[in-house]
């Protein structure tokens, strides 16, 4: 039922994927049991450090790769602002090695570089989904794909090439192979089905036809990241 709800939400009641649901939870014939484990609603989501690292991995080039120091720090600051410092929404408790009240709340007391006292730490070790968290995630996605150096880095990963080799001017939209690579970057260990790749490609091709290849790449990473399900552990 939950999966049906999910699909209805995602598709606006347009797509019937019930066959896949049945396959994933086929009956053993034993009353009251399930062939596959069912995860109860207490989901575990990555904390701010985890989510930040995913964004950094995909979108943050290094100076060694050819990005300027300003570009690197701009991306770092953007991720920090939207994710790293949002300890109330993303969790990730402060510890002795946290080095800034910006990351641990106004009650944090710094001595040297270490937090030695935190009277108002609001961060949970693991936070769950909230609209605030989703909002900040979306802000980060939208902001990063709109920033050329970040988009170049993401494209370079999908193309399995260097940051410097990516020129956004006149770039073609993603191929199926590049989409498959991008997918596996967002969801490590998952090789998407051809049907899925075709649907993403249909979207990016349509965007490329209406706009250009760069916009198609933006849309590719938008749709890959926007489910936010990659944050689930």
């Amino acid at each position: 039922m939950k999966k049906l709800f999910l699909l209805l939400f995602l598709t606006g009641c347009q797509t019937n994927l019930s066959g896949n649901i049945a396959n994933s939870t086929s009956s053993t014939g034993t009353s009251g049991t399930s062939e596959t484990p069912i995860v109860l609603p207490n989901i575990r989501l990555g904390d701010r450090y985890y989510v930040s690292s995913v964004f950094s991995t995909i979108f943050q080039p290094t100076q060694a790769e050819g990005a300027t120091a300003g570009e690197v720090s701009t991306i770092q600051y953007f991720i920090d602002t939207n994710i790293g410092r949002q300890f109330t929404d993303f969790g990730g408790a402060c510890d002795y090695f946290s080095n800034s009240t910006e990351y641990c709340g106004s009650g944090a007391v710094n001595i040297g570089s270490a937090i030695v006292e935190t009277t108002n730490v609001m961060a949970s070790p693991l936070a769950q989904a909230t609209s605030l968290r989703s909002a900040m995630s979306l802000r980060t996605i939208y902001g990063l794909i709109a920033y050329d150096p970040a988009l170049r880095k993401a494209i370079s990963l999908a193309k399995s090439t260097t940051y410097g080799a990516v020129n956004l001017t006149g770039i073609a939209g993603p191929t199926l192979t590049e989409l498959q690579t991008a997918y596996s970057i967002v969801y490590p260990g998952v090789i998407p089905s051809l049907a899925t790749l075709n649907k993403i490609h249909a979207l990016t091709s349509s965007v490329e036809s209406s706009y250009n290849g760069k916009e198609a790449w933006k849309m590719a990473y938008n749709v890959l990241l926007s489910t936010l399900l990659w944050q689930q552990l």
Partner: protein
Amino acid sequence: MIKTPKEIAIAELEMKKTLHRRQFLKSFSGWSGAAMVGCSSAASVLQMMIHGAISKAYGETLATEPRTFLDIFINGGFPAQFLYLPLNPGGGSNYVHNTWNSTNWVSDQPVAGFVPVTTNGQTMHLPFIWGQNIPRASARGGGQVPVSSLLTNTMFARGFWNPSDGHEVGQVQVFRPNPTEPSISGMVADQVDASRIPIPAVSAGAGGYADFYSRTKGIKRVGLNGNPVSDLVSSFTSNAEMTAALAKKDQFSALFQEALTAVAQDARVLNGGSETILSTLSSAENLFRRNFGNLTDVFNNLKAKYAALITASTNMSELFSSAISPAAGHAYRNGNDSVNLYSVTNADLRTIITINSTVDRMAESFAVAEFLMMEGLSKAILIQLTTLLNVAMTKSSGTANAIIVDQHALGVGVSVVANNFYARSLTACLYELTSRLKETNKFNETVIKVGSEFTRSPRDDGTGGDHGWQGNCFMLLSGAIKKPAIVGNLSLNFYTRTQNIPSLAGTWGVGGTINHEGSNSTRLNMGHYASTVCTALKVPSPTPNFLGIVAESPTEGLVPLIGPGETRDD
């Protein structure tokens, strides 16, 4: 047969119920022997049965949306007898007055100031302010209304012992009595439907000690300078990049949805809980599209409304028809600014409150609370009130313009004026806020708590008070409270009689023994405090081994689980 996630969820709920029943029985076993041996009366058996029913209901609340919680915390230990600590509710003789507990001034002398107030055929003797009038917002017709208009939906809870003295330990106990569990606000945050309530919990203003902790959803803190409501919704404020991204998404909506569905499905993370992420994603996007816009006018208008009520509460002649003029140099004229003790020399102490007097950021706090509650943005809101500002005290040398809440040496004459202004301002704001909640049908699902980290113990010469950590108390307002009640016992003269401390003589709020948890000699502690508040909020208690002293009846709403508050000679 495959169990659906719904069935699993129901099974989980049953497990939780069982767990809580077990926790209950575990705690129950500690006193059941005493109950059966020492108090084997029908009443005790009945109470045990009630506790069983409460425990069952307690488990069932796990599946219930919590009530919205507005925690109004008067930071510093407000002398509660001015508002929410009825010291002599029955009006009888089982009360020993202490000068510092005076809340009125008659014939040039401080007096206890209790006023009989009858509501629903029930008469209670309440603090002086409950017999007075408060200003009403001009949009509501202006003029004044009785403070007792609030009483029908009010419950007073008294006599909770903090574990030890100190502002910090008191605040920790009030907010988060169990260090291994979330704060009470955090318990609410953890229970809310995150797809419907965008900001599960908010702490507005200066933070207290250990007040913020939610196990899973976080508590947002916002300052009260500038425009706090804009700050609170800033996460949902759209910008150029987001507008562009959303526009493109809309332009290719059908293709986007198909691709998104396929991406999610292949990710193989569609197990239980994923829909929570997606529902909050939808909520966030809707909020982006809602475009809160510039909230400056919204906040300023709300702030101005509450500020006007506070200003209209400053006319002390409406509370005291004649001058309050203790003799020059008398202890009743003491003032303190936490550093210096001085004598207040205003000829008439009523004049220390001027048209400009206010409570620091009270208007801003109520504006934030009303905004969040009316917009349905949060389920747990903590506001912290502190200092009286813009007072006009002349003193033996110079002037003073602020009165702190941590009133260690505030003479009775000054206290009567200052704290009645405080209480009047607060009740005027409460009347306006509860009126808004009523007219939008939100009051039944709201609980407003007014409290401090402790109340104040007296100094018998009227020079001031001290930390009354042995008698914490609070006031609840909720549409779920259908008739007023006072619960929790006080001790008649505990310190004088048992510890021979004459300076603490009188009935000033020390928790007395009560008949609870199967014993007639239970003293309430902060575990009972938290469980009581959590029962009203319909959330699990962080201290489940201590049973709260209220229960919820399907027909009568929130009712006391114990008898009416009394004063015991114990």
